[in-house]
């Protein structure tokens, strides 16, 4: 039995860990029935077990192990973003495989403060281990299914900032245009695992599930803590307390961590083989969607920093953009995939965030943003947000480059199309703002591609009678 004083100290340490303004923190083997995140982190990545509906016990276990490998691999690639939490949840042994506890629709509301779980309140009454308002979450889950000797893995992801829309505002010529991302939930293409891959997962799991004294698989170590203590009594909510750790540094495939010893309550250090891949093959080569998850984490991290006016992590823009592009490149076989479009929009937003401050040196970023958004629009030509993101980014890039907007007939038609396809009044505002910008601009050359001021005035009048159905 853990002595009361040690237990109290341990619980305090864990609560500090959960709420601290940490750089990077991580926790594994969290019981789905007590979902948690690192409340102090700007963005949390939470990986639920990959579920397998069948009765093959080997595959059922693989689901938990794969989720740990995914979490650690992603973590090792997002450390540079800083203020990151990573959590892996699973079904404890003996829990019914059909339990709903690990379903995203059950876990997500709890992480957003929808139900108490094992959260504890800070002085302001806000739970410490739920996502804070404005902070980001990437929730990852998946399916395993068997097809002959092959196993297919399908990953899903949902991302958000709590109580915050993923709105992008474009400003040019005294006007602004707003649109949201086309989707915040993505189903990735199933990826094939061979039986050999499954054995490699077991091998990698055995390596990754240890905290070692040195960055060496033969170095002595302890297994990653499971449910390590239970707070019982006054002031406790009778829920399990989990062990988490800070990431101190990364060395190749290894991360050095600091954690609280579950028995003695003292601070300890160790190494985790986080990104060993599968027999030398990086896990994100087999599951390219991990690149999407990494880049998406970077996107959220940058948006949180932008909204809170805190410094951007150095190199984060380029890293996030590279990760998203790497995903799109590796997903070439699915050119019409929604995931490709969303990745393009995330990359476009990142480029726009870099390019939007004044300065001619930023124009290249704006042009890249316009290109990213246009590629997404081609995949989703029916989506009003995809249309507006493409048009808005083109308007800004042209305005900054040439001081005017071109192909205004086409842009007007595109924004008009978006109004019909949208149920948001913002679509109508966007077109009004576009016309206002044109009326403030010099008269364009008299060519078919450009709206004259007289034509714009006529369109403004016509627009006055238009309403967007709710």
């Amino acid at each position, binding site marked *: 039995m853990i002595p009361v004083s040690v237990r109290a100290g341990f619980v305090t340490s864990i609560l500090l860990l959960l709420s601290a303004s940490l750089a990077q923190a991580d926790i594994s083997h969290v019981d789905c029935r007590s979902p948690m995140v690192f409340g102090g982190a700007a963005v949390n990545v939470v990986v639920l077990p990959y579920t397998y509906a069948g009765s093959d016990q080997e595959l059922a276990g693989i689901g938990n192990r794969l989720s740990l490998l995914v979490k650690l691999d992603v973590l090792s690639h997002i450390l540079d973003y800083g203020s990151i939490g990573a959590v892996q949840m699973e079904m404890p042994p003996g829990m019914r495989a059909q339990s709903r506890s690990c379903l995203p629709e059950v876990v997500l509301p709890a992480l957003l403060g929808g139900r108490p779980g094992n959260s504890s309140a800070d002085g302001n009454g806000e739970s410490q281990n739920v996502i804070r308002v404005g902070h980001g979450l990437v929730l990852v889950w998946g399916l395993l*299914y068997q097809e002959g000797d092959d196993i297919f893995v399908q990953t899903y992801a949902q991302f958000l900032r709590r109580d915050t829309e993923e709105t992008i505002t474009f400003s040019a010529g005294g006007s602004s245009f707003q649109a949201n991302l086309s989707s915040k939930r993505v189903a990735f293409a199933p990826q094939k695992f061979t039986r050999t891959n499954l054995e490699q997962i077991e091998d990698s799991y055995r390596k990754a599930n240890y905290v070692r004294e040195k960055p060496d698989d033969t170095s002595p170590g302890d297994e990653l803590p499971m449910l390590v203590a239970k707070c019982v009594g006054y002031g406790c909510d009778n829920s399990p307390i989990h062990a988490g750790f800070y990431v101190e540094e990364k060395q190749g495939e290894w991360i050095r961590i600091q954690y609280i010893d579950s028995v003695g309550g003292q601070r300890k250090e160790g190494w985790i083989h986080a990104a060993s891949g599968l027999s030398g093959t990086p896990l994100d080569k087999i599951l390219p969607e991990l690149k999407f998850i990494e880049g998406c984490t970077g996107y959220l991290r940058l948006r949180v920093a932008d909204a809170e006016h805190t410094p951007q992590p150095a190199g984060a823009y380029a890293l996030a953009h590279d990760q998203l592009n790497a995903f799109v490149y590796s997903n070439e076989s699915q050119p019409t995939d929604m995931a490709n479009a969303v990745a393009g929009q995330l990359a476009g937003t990142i480029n726009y965030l870099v390019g939007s401050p004044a300065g001619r040196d930023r124009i290249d970023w704006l042009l890249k943003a316009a290109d990213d958004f246009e590629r997404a629009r081609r995949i989703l030509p029916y989506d009003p947000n995809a249309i507006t993101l493409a048009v808005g980014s083109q308007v800004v890039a042209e305005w900054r480059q040439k001081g005017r907007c071109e192909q205004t007939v086409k842009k007007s038609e595109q924004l008009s199309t978006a109004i019909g396809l949208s149920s948001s009044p913002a679509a109508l505002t966007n077109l009004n703002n576009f016309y206002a910008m044109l009326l403030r601009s010099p008269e364009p050359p008299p060519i078919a591609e450009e709206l004259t001021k007289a034509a714009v005035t006529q369109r403004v009048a016509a627009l006055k009678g238009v309403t967007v159905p709710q």
Partner: protein
Amino acid sequence: MFLYMVHSARSIGYATVVMLATCGMARAQLTNCRDPGPPEAFKIFVDEVRVSGGSVPTASVQAKLQTIHKFLYENLRASSGDNASVRDCGKRYPNDPADFDSTEFGGLDNLRVVLEVWGALDNPTKGSGTLGFALIPAHSIAPPAVFIISSDNLLNSLRQGRQIGAFAPLVSGISQYQNRNYAGAIPLLCAGTQQLTPVLSGQAAFGDAAFLSRQQALMKRVREMTDAAVKEARKTQGSPFSLWSPSSDGTFVCPK
């Protein structure tokens, strides 16, 4: 009763398309969905996946059945988004496409069901089987709107054909159109048209020639419906579709 059976050796395996019009013949009634969901929401029913012939499956076969069911459920959930609620219908299972008679279609329509999907494993060892789906709102415009696709390897077909989710916005759009919500129908019809295009053409095409032919006919009807929906929507004062311009032949088409 009409029966179409077609085989072809596409990448997804042999496919059989069976389409039966209803004829009022006596048959066992479909059991109700165990979880039909809220009355106001559009729904997609995912029925049981069974072994053909009604034999009792072994544990490993049962696992395969559950996997197919789970796969259908999750991918339809992902593709339907907020447009429709995907329901696990438990033991509900159409033994015969003719189970979908006018009464059944009417009942499903009243429940706001837009799509119903089920499956059968013919040869559990090989994994061959059939996938059935009924496009409820399409029954009145392209009857019978019940399709059964056969494959040498059902899971493989599902993996390549996860585009079955592309039918979700299409049928939701048809339903909205039939309910005269023209403005609400257009975005869904356009989304369905765009998403189904790669499903019905090229290397990744889903189903065999006869199936594709039927789907192309449906798509033609949907394009006409989109044009009609825009024209109807424009009759409403203040309609944003008054801002849309027709193409050179006077029809309205989805953005490209």
